[in-house]
């Protein structure tokens, strides 16, 4: 039964992901973390692992959660679940409905899904940030327990990224951001 639930959950996530990668995170948090399949900490760890390994985030996270919950079968079904909506929808569009995308209603709907997704990602970023820096037992209802080292690292990195952008005229790449944070993490937290 857990296998079917994995499949269904990731099918739903695939079906309602508008935009790439990070647009899935709010839904993963609700559907996967709230069900107790993986912890909030494991999810954040995994976002880092996924950034540092090749392949689309959607497939990476489905494989990871599927394997943690239901081993090989779980990994396969979760991955299948997350790709199936794309497969069905895109085949239909490619076969008969290519003009569908240009339709005013489709464009209108998309125009207002985008700010929703953006709001959801920002809210996820804020809650993860608060949990890591101020609520170390991972719940926003618990008492505040400030992690000074995390805050120092965060502020230092923001400063570094802003200076880098001024000097180099381009943003620091995601992999470099993770690399520097990981390295400083080892120095600060060990």
């Amino acid at each position, binding site marked *: 039964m857990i296998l079917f639930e994995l499949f269904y959950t990731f099918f739903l996530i*695939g*079906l309602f992901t*508008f935009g790439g990668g*990070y647009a899935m995170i709010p*839904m993963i948090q*609700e559907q996967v973390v*709230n*069900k107790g399949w993986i912890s909030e*900490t*494991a999810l954040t*760890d995994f976002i880092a*692992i996924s*950034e540092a*390994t*090749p*392949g*689309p985030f*959607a*497939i*990476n996270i489905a*494989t*990871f959660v599927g*394997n943690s919950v239901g081993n*090989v079968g779980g*990994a396969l079904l979760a991955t299948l679940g*997350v*790709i199936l909506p*794309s*497969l069905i*929808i*895109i*085949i239909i569009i*490619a*076969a008969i409905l*290519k003009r569908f995308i240009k339709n*005013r*209603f489709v464009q209108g*709907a998309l125009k*207002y*899904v985008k*700010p*929703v997704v953006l*709001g*959801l*990602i920002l*809210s996820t*970023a804020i809650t*993860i*940030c608060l949990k890591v820096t101020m609520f170390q037992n991972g719940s926003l*209802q618990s008492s505040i327990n400030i992690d000074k*080292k*995390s805050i120092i690292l*965060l502020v230092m*990195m923001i400063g570094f990224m802003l200076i880098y952008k001024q000097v180099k005229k381009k*943003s620091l790449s*995601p992999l470099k*951001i*993770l690399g520097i944070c*990981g390295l400083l993490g080892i120095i600060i*937290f060990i």
Partner: protein
Amino acid sequence: MIPLIQDEICNKHKWISEEEILDIIAISETTPGPIAVNAATFVGYRVAGVLGAIFATIGLAIPSFVIIFVISFFYKDFIKIKFFDALFKGLKIGVILLLFSAVIRLFKSFKINLLGIIIFAIVLVVSIVFSFINITFNYLSLGLILAGIFTGLLITALSKRRENK
């Protein structure tokens, strides 16, 4: 990923023209589902029909699947080691920074109008309030996304009526 798709599909294999691949990427970005998966399905379908779509999508999934499958076996043991625990504590800060910079980047690219900004603000406040009060509601994001879709449809329908008058 997009430059890689263009190079492999258009230049090396000459399956699809440069112009059409841009169309495909645009469609992949607007339809539900992860962009990479959508693009693989679309290219597969254009080159070899339904079977092509299935094989292209499975092909895309296999490398990630194998790599992550192996990593997920080691993950639990790794984080027990002090060195990796410290590493991941640092990486968490990196993830936070990546999320915030993704929001900034998307905000710049979206060309949001005033109503869009209002919707963005409402969604932000509602979902933050929900994470602070002790209610676990698993369908908040999904509900808000559906509400966004209906708002868009409603506004399109209303603007049509105005044009007719």
